[in-house]
């Protein structure tokens, strides 16, 4: 490899030997694209004219107060309904650049699958999405969206039949198909170069938000808050603020039922190796990976991107669990008070921000918070209706 493959103790490329050349080819294409102004121009063109960048920064009108100000980075307004589109377009361009004919991807709730299907349709690449059979049953609408855009959705019947198993199956496909196929991994997890590559294509979120914040507030936020499953939206908004030591970076993990059934990998996991990376991992004492639990499929993943494990280890970022209940309350609050329906994933970040805002109000302190509203809640309507009841 030509680049640094690790973030401190975390990261690496723990894949079967036969996949190493594919990762090296991807790294080379990534480096080559980074130094090619034509690549940057084409991506920029797609991001503005197709995806809808820049996304706005919205100050909450009703939540917060004069002293406590909540800002939402509106990735929910991006084409596709979530931040996923940013890096999917970039990777699809890389796939074309490498001469690949086919895209494969894993998906949990279906957002990354939908984004990949979009890119496949746009770029004329054959697309196959691996999705846990359990998730296929729960997310019929997204399955239909993917199929409508021409992707083949393959239900994965192994293991717990969710996101982790979909990643396994995509990796298996890739070990046989890498010559003509690009694995369009959906987050900052997996083997090098994915964590670095996906971060670099998502950091536009924080870059825009930092400028917008300075324009609107003439200051930096006290804290940046984002939800963390694999962690791509969080890395996307954190990266630009990492050098700003006075800005707290807070990742919100899936706290599940609050009684131990959760997806709080950094909070409750320990270091291990899964899906190509040495990272924090939910596992038993023998090293068997255990199933995670969360109301939001996008945070329902027993590992986390290695850079988050590193940011936690160095103390630059902190990670807190937010329970299903807290996230659902925030989901309803944001809908009622601001007229914005967040994705269940993003509602975890909103919940923690509201908690910090309440505390600041009680203490009479000034507080400026930047929350990454990473996706919109359309995909969660059926589940929300079931959980909250028709009267909400």
């Amino acid at each position, binding site marked *: 490899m030509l680049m640094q493959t690790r973030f401190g103790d975390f990261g690496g490329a*723990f894949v079967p030997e036969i996949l190493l050349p594919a990762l090296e080819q991807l790294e080379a294409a990534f480096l080559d694209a980074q130094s090619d102004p034509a690549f940057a121009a084409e991506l920029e063109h797609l991001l503005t004219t197709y995806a809808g960048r820049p996304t706005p920064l919205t100050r909450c009108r009703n939540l917060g107060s004069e002293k406590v100000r909540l800002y939402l980075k509106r990735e929910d307004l991006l084409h596709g309904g979530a931040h996923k589109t940013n890096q999917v377009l970039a990777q699809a361009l890389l796939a074309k650049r490498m001469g690949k004919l086919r895209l494969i991807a894993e998906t949990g709730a279906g957002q990354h699958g939908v984004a990949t299907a979009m890119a496949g349709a746009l770029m004329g690449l054959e697309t196959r999405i691996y999705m846990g059979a359990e998730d296929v049953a729960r997310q019929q609408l997204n399955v239909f969206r993917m199929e409508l855009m021409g992707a083949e959705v393959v239900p994965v019947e192994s293991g717990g039949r969710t996101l982790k198993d979909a990643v396994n199956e995509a990796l*298996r496909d890739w070990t046989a198909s890498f010559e003509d196929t690009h694995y369009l991994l959906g987050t900052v997890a997996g083997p090098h170069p994915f964590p670095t590559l996906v971060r670099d294509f998502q950091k536009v979120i924080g870059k825009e938000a930092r400028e917008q914040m300075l324009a609107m507030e003439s200051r930096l936020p006290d804290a940046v808050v984002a939800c963390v499953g694999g962690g791509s939206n969080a890395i996307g908004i954190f990266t630009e603020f990492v050098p700003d030591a006075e800005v707290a970076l807070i990742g919100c993990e899936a706290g599940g039922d609050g009684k131990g059934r959760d997806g709080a990998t950094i909070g409750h996991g320990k270091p291990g190796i899964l899906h190509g990376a040495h990272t924090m991992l939910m596992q038993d004492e023998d090293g068997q*990976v255990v199933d995670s639990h969360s109301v939001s499929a996008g945070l329902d993943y027993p590992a986390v991107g290695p850079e988050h494990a590193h940011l936690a280890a160095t103390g630059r970022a902190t990670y807190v669990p937010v329970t299903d209940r807290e996230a659902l309350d925030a989901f309803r609050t944001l809908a009622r008070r601001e007229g914005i329906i967040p994705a269940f994933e993003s509602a975890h970040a909103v919940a923690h921000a509201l908690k910090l805002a309440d505390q600041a109000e009680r203490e009479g302190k000034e507080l400026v918070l930047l929350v990454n509203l990473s996706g919109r809640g359309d995909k969660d309507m059926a589940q929300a209706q079931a959980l909250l009841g028709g009267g909400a």
Partner: protein
Amino acid sequence: MTRRYDAMFAACREEGRGAFGAFLMIGDPDLGASEAMIEAAIAGGADMLELGIPFSDPVADGPVIQAAACRALGAGTTPSKCLEVIATIRARHPDIPIGILTYANIAVARGVGQFAGELAKAGVDSLLLADIPSLEAAPFAAAIRAAGIAPVLIAAPNTPDQALAAIARLAGGYTYCVARKGVTGAKDDMELDHTRLFERLAALGAPPPVLGFGIGTAAQVRASLDAGAAGVISGSAIVAAAAKSGDHAVAVERVVEDLASATKSKRAPRQAQACAN
């Protein structure tokens, strides 16, 4: 540390044939049955054993071995229980090389050195971690060697020279060469060019090449040996036959007999032919 492998390969060479390795998952469908299946593989003529310790997320495995790992974990198989089965087999068979195939996190959870030490104590000769490629292998290989067993690494026909050199330098016992792209599983395609890989490994002084992933018929065994492999490993064909049969051990013995007998019709090694010309 490679004493049993060295003796076994020497004996096979003397008999003018290749080595046959049988893969079985420990604990599939339960510990007792898998122990009987391992015995059956030895009785059927396996020259070396490749035993799996089940892992929850076996990304290098196809459906057959995945299902075997699933059954084993479902039956409550743990690494500690696997060690007991291995020690029992070793006590009855002092000479057969025993390799363990599992995934990195099983070793990392216990500490790689500690895990390799426990394997050594149970009588294991080598450890292969399917998701540790040459790029990451150095610290793992060092810890495995320090425990007194051989680190086995995987080489593929698409492995670049530099990585192959690292494999030759770090690996011990044998070199696990993959018969085709993709995951484990008996298939009828052996599309990759192995002779070239075997030649490159020989030039680098790597341990003897043994071909695995997708070898499930006597014809494939013969083709592998004719291409220059020192041996073959068959897994999915054995595991699938056992899973289908009412008597697992009988099925294992029958398949192993069939495949192992194919090692005996090996032609003279290609390199020797080249020298003769």
